[in-house]
């Protein structure tokens, strides 16, 4: 059956309108390319709006000691050197320009209090100095609104509420995309010389997550099906502070900014437990006693003293997310958790009610309205929640091009920048740094290429696939499969992994795949969420399998990948990345060499005190670390 589809033709097609997609589209359009932006929701609603704490860039407006080299080193240490160093370098160097550019486009960041009227920055986990430009705790909204307002005046065509189901190729190069408008269900063909996937993350694979319905891993699956390689899919970030009560908001994000503003983590005995969990890589960098941490808090946060003159070190609550999440888990497992299975995050006893409402307005609002908790009076209950995918489409660090010609990836959808664990604030900066690069290079590619040919006969097959849930009579609804997928991932490939659990997970995924073949959708194609979920599930199952296979392959613990059967860094894996690609109908898993920081640069960073050799050795599995 041939369907009546709409058809558009562009130089550059951007799939996903979060921070990375918007920034990419602005850049491609500015380069003179006919550019379109496709998004599953309305424009301005992408998951970027949920980013709270800030955007990391070595602006050095508050602490003059900050530099790109420090940011670069922090990012590598935070990522346990699982990063593609070139991406981390580009990011650290370009982030300040991208932040200032946002300001030029109308973003109104919070200002410094020193009378100089600069962009203010705050502390966040794993960053040596104050480094996050922010707007209260709604930085993501500011970023997306600024880019949206810039974008609508940039001559970009925006196709809202449109889901891409397949990427199309002309030989070995990208040629277009096929999907449907969610409102009408009508199919749509986009012919394009180059395509950027910037579709965000995978949070919806887990039952406890901080993500929106859109985060179903579309970009990873679309790219994979089109023949692109994925990398580092085992690196998943579980954010330490998600809400745990009531059940309806379980997983909802609580910004790291709470700790940046002085919040502390406590167990049910009232102990600040983080002092017990400082890993060797952070030893000497964080306060070792409560007295020291409190003195730092008093001087730096309360009195606003310059940190340059403060001898105390910052509190261990400000270590990277992987470290904090594991510490939380250990406390909960040991029976020292809170009433509803989390731990306590206390800002009430640290800051005045007025300060809390001013610095963390949406946190105040969120707890008051959704949990009947006044965070200016009592501690919050928090626990780990699936938050971010560090892995993704394997890209050329300079151009963001995938292993398929003309196909680019940016933002959460691409791999390499964050290694095995992302630092807070490095995501928003990732979006604008690599969004810009992807837009620039996708435009350059488009300008130098001819119009690709599309074999429209493949569209019939795609139409049949998309329609199948309506033709399957009496099957189960998509939501039942989704719920079971989330349980399977949580159980088999959650925060803690081991061989047998991962094997179980892969079996579960295989049986879910069979169930998905028989899934039914009721009603018709008009704005039909049950049908949408049925189609999204194909992507989620591909991503789940890639994740579990990657996790099974990496027999060590590193950052967001923790194995109970291989608990340390391993030197066999320290310099490897796990790459996944489609081979016929099978998923092929291979290990590749991960490019290493050039010896000269590494020596320079060690000499200047940005890196410590013993830490490097530990992370590379050459010296004991755990």
């Amino acid at each position: 059956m041939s369907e009546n589809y709409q058809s558009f033709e562009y130089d550059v097609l951007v799939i996903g309108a979060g921070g990375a997609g918007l920034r990419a589209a602005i850049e491609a359009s500015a380069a003179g390319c006919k550019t379109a932006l496709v998004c599953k929701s309305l424009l301005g609603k992408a998951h970027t709006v949920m980013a709270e704490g800030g955007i990391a860039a070595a602006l050095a407006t508050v602490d003059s000691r900050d530099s790109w080299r420090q940011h670069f080193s922090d990012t590598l240490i935070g990522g346990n050197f699982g990063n593609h160093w070139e991406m981390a370098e580009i990011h650290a160097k370009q982030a300040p320009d991208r932040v200032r550019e946002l300001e030029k486009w109308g973003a109104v960041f919070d200002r410094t209090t020193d009378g100089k009227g600069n962009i203010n920055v705050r502390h966040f986990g794993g960053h040596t100095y104050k480094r996050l430009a922010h707007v209260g705790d709604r930085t993501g909204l500011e970023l997306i609104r600024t880019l949206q307002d810039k974008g609508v005046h940039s001559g970009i065509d925006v196709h809202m509420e449109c889901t891409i189901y397949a990427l199309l190729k002309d030989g070995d190069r990208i040629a277009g995309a096929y999907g449907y408008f969610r409102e009408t269900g009508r199919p749509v063909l986009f012919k394009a010389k180059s395509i950027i996937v910037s579709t965000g993350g995978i949070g919806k694979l887990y039952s406890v997550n901080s993500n929106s319905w859109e985060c179903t891993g579309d970009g990873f699956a679309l790219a994979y099906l089109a023949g692109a390689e994925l990398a580092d899919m085992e690196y998943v970030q579980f954010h330490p502070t998600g809400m745990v009560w009531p059940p309806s908001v379980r997983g909802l994000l609580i910004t790291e900014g709470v700790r940046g503003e002085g919040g502390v983590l406590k167990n049910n005995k009232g102990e600040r437990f983080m002092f017990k969990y400082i890993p060797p890589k952070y030893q000497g960098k964080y306060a070792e006693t409560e007295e020291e941490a409190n003195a730092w808090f008093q001087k730096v946060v309360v009195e606003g003293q310059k940190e340059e003159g403060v001898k105390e070190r910052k509190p261990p609550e400000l270590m990277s997310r992987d470290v904090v999440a594991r510490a939380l888990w250990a406390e909960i497992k040991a029976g020292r958790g809170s009433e509803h299975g989390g731990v306590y995050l206390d800002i009430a006893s640290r800051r005045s009610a007025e300060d809390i409402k001013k610095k963390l307005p949406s946190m105040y609002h969120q707890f008051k309205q959704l949990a009947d908790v006044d965070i200016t009076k009592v501690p919050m209950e928090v626990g780990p929640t699936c938050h971010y995918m560090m892995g993704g489409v394997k890209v050329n660090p300079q151009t963001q091009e995938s292993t398929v010609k003309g196909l680019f990836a940016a933002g959460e959808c691409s791999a390499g920048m964050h290694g095995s664990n992302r630092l807070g604030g490095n995501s928003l900066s990732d979006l604008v740094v690599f969004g810009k690069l992807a837009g620039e290079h996708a435009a350059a590619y488009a300008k130098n290429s001819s119009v690709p040919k599309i074999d429209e006969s493949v569209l019939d097959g795609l139409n049949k696939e998309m329609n199948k849930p309506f033709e399957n009579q009496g099957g189960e609804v998509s939501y039942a499969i989704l719920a079971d997928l989330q349980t399977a991932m949580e159980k088999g490939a959650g925060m803690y992994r081991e061989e047998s659990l991962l094997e179980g997970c892969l079996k579960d995924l295989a049986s879910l795949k069979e169930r998905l073949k028989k899934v039914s959708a009721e009603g018709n194609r008009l704005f039909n969420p049950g049908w949408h979920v049925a189609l999204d599930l194909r992507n989620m199952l591909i991503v789940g399998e890639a994740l579990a296979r990657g996790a099974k392959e990496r027999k060590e613990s590193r950052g967001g990948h923790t194995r109970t059967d291989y608990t340390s860094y391993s030197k066999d894996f320290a310099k490897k990345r796990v790459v996944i690609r489609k081979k016929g109908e099978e998923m092929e898993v291979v290990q590749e060499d991960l490019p290493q920081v050039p010896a000269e640069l590494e020596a320079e960073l060690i000499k200047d005190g940005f890196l410590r050799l013993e830490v490097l050795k530990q992370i590379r599995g050459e010296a004991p670390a755990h």
Partner: protein
Amino acid sequence: MSKIHMRVYRGNSEGGQLKDYDVEVAEGMVVLDAIHNLQATQTSDLACRWNCKAGKCGSCSAEVNGKPRLMCMTRLNEFAEGETITVMPMKTFPIMKDLATDVSWNYEVNKRIPPFTPREGADWHWEQRDADRAQEFRKCIECFLCQDTCHVLREHDKKTSFAGPRFFARIASLEMHPIDGLDRTELLKDQHGIGLCNITRCCTEVCPESIRITDNAIIPMKERVVDKYYDPLRILWNKMTGK
């Protein structure tokens, strides 16, 4: 687990009606949870928009028991035990399907607002007190509940001659930006019809972000228009100086 009774609008651009459902609910649930529960267990093709489920994206706007609300921030325990919860789509915009409405008009209005334009040679250093004014309006999550409730749009359907509170706040955020150099008062007066607003403050009441739209955005913008176009001394001065 207990049960509540809900009535949810089902229909499309050609018409529809309220349908009755009984929904299982648990502690802490919000209206959006109940809608999701319906989708998962009773009627998987029930259309509604949502994204963040945390009051940050402004997608799940609807009218709950007659009040424009975000479904994700409306707790079920706000309602009396046994009370029926009725969920309707926003009335001001055309229905696409069920609870999803066609809000594209808002995006068209937004496009017509001249973008942020920094003054030439502006000093990019400014203080927090200068940022505060613009930041209040930049909190807007574009839920369009203010547009939904505004009687100029809701009762009188003046979409061709009136921009609505959302966009008065947006223009205010630009006009009060410490660096912006454009003057948008003519736009406010003419195409955006700010004069049609008679300050009933309904928009401010429904704003989930507690933006003081009327007092801090609309009234100051109205004053600028009056100042520029209707101030008798100014008119006289302009005549004398030939402006």
